[in-house]
């Protein structure tokens, strides 16, 4: 089967192999690690490279067509986040805090996913719409904001309920509760928007757009040619961290493990279908789908720990980094690519449902 072959081929790329290597190194308790300064610098570098690349592409291809995909992506993200919450709270029986935290971790997007996706496409000789980097930037804070808003509303409601059972005219305290929620939200909003990931990504998109291909030339070697090599180094560290977390998967449980595999595949597939329908290219649809499939494991802890401190980070970090990320870059990405290729080149009417079922 084609997909299996592609998964196999993808498995044998340096990026995936060094990731698996990192996992093994952590499992045999090797003292190998990438120094903190390097692994803190690499995401900044990767986002700058992604942004510059996206900005330059947008200058070439224009961004008039960006708006519809962007709003569809926002809509899907919010929808997905709410859907995750229902599944986690009702089926998974997680508490309110963990449910919202997990829902937004999977509603959010992952920049490392995106880097690996870009590199995968480069390897396949396929390009993608530059404006998807801009969608990445816009989606980044979205799911968090929704989750925080919902959590605080829920908490405020609880407080209100409690208060009313005591006395009936305690509206001031509830107002205080709501005000606190607002303060918290505006703080998180500010934190998200000024968060390093978004800032470097948006900044680089703008700079890429301004300088264009010519202006990029003198820095192309650093910000383009070295891109895949840099990801490889980053993947060693990601593998090590994922490997260290594997023990925690027991704590994650069967339900969340299944969630961490099925949801990305589902969201990703929807992403590819919708974006193909919107007219994105083969590569663009893959990147769009990957965004929908991705979960956030670098930005999430930083935002959620402040915003929903009651939620357990061992749940959302472990499932996103230890399960979803490896699954996505090894399995989901080739599946989305096959699906997108098929949709873009397949002749006549396609029985999508059958196709997807075969994909599993």
């Amino acid at each position: 089967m084609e997909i299996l072959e592609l998964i196999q081929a993808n498995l044998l790329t340096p990026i995936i192999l060094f990731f698996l290597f990192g996992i093994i190194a952590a499992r045999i308790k090797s003292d190998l690690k990438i120094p903190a300064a390097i692994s803190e610098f690499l995401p900044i570098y990767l986002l700058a490279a992604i942004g510059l690349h996206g900005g330059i592409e947008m200058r070439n291809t224009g961004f008039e067509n960006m708006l519809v995909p962007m709003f569809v992506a926002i809509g899907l993200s919010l929808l997905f986040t709410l859907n995750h919450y229902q599944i986690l709270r009702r089926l998974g029986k997680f508490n309110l805090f963990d449910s919202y935290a997990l829902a937004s971790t999977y509603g959010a997007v992952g920049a490392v996913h995106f880097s690996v996706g870009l590199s995968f496409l480069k390897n396949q000789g396929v390009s993608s719409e530059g404006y998807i980097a801009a969608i990445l930037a816009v989606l980044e804070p979205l799911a968090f904001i929704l989750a925080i808003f919902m959590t605080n509303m829920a908490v405020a409601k609880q407080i209100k309920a409690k208060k009313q059972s005591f006395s009936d005219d305690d509206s001031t305290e509830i107002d205080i509760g709501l005000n606190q929620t607002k303060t918290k939200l505006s703080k998180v909003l500010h934190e998200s928007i000024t968060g390093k990931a978004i800032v470097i990504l948006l900044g680089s998109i703008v700079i890429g757009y301004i300088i264009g291909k010519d202006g990029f030339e003198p820095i192309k070697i650093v910000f383009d040619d070295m891109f895949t090599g840099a990801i490889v180094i980053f993947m060693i560290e990601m593998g090590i961290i994922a490997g260290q977390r594997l023990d925690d998967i027991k704590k994650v449980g069967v339900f969340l493990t299944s969630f961490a595999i099925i949801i990305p595949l589902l969201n990703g597939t929807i992403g590819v279908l919708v974006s193909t329908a919107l007219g994105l290219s083969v590569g663009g649809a893959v990147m769009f789908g990957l965004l929908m499939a991705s979960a956030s494991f670098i930005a999430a802890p930083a935002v959620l720990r402040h915003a929903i401190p009651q939620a357990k980070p061992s749940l959302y970090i472990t499932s996103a980094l230890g399960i979803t990320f490896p699954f996505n870059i090894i399995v989901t990405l080739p599946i989305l690519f096959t699906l997108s290729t098929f949709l873009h080149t397949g002749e006549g009417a396609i029985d999508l449902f059958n196709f997807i079922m075969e994909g599993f």
Partner: protein
Amino acid sequence: MKLYNVKLLTITCEILAQENIIEILKKHEITGYTTYEVDGNGARGLRGQGLKTEKNVKVEVIMREEKLQDIVEEISRTLFANYAIVLYVSDIGVLRPEKF
């Protein structure tokens, strides 16, 4: 040189709680403190490997005894439940007590 007795409050906590602590200090009008990143082990397991957000930080604050009670109380009330955190108090002597 006379040394004046004051208190040193040391807080070891996960790095993402640092902001909350600084805020509490500010609320009590304390703007002097020293911080540095550390690794650690405790009830919440080994900390300091992997992601930066999984590290610990130490926050050290020299302060007068008067403020200590309130600050310690507020930190323990708002942060002990949800964050990896340990705090302790020691007696120290300083030259310029008016600084703190």
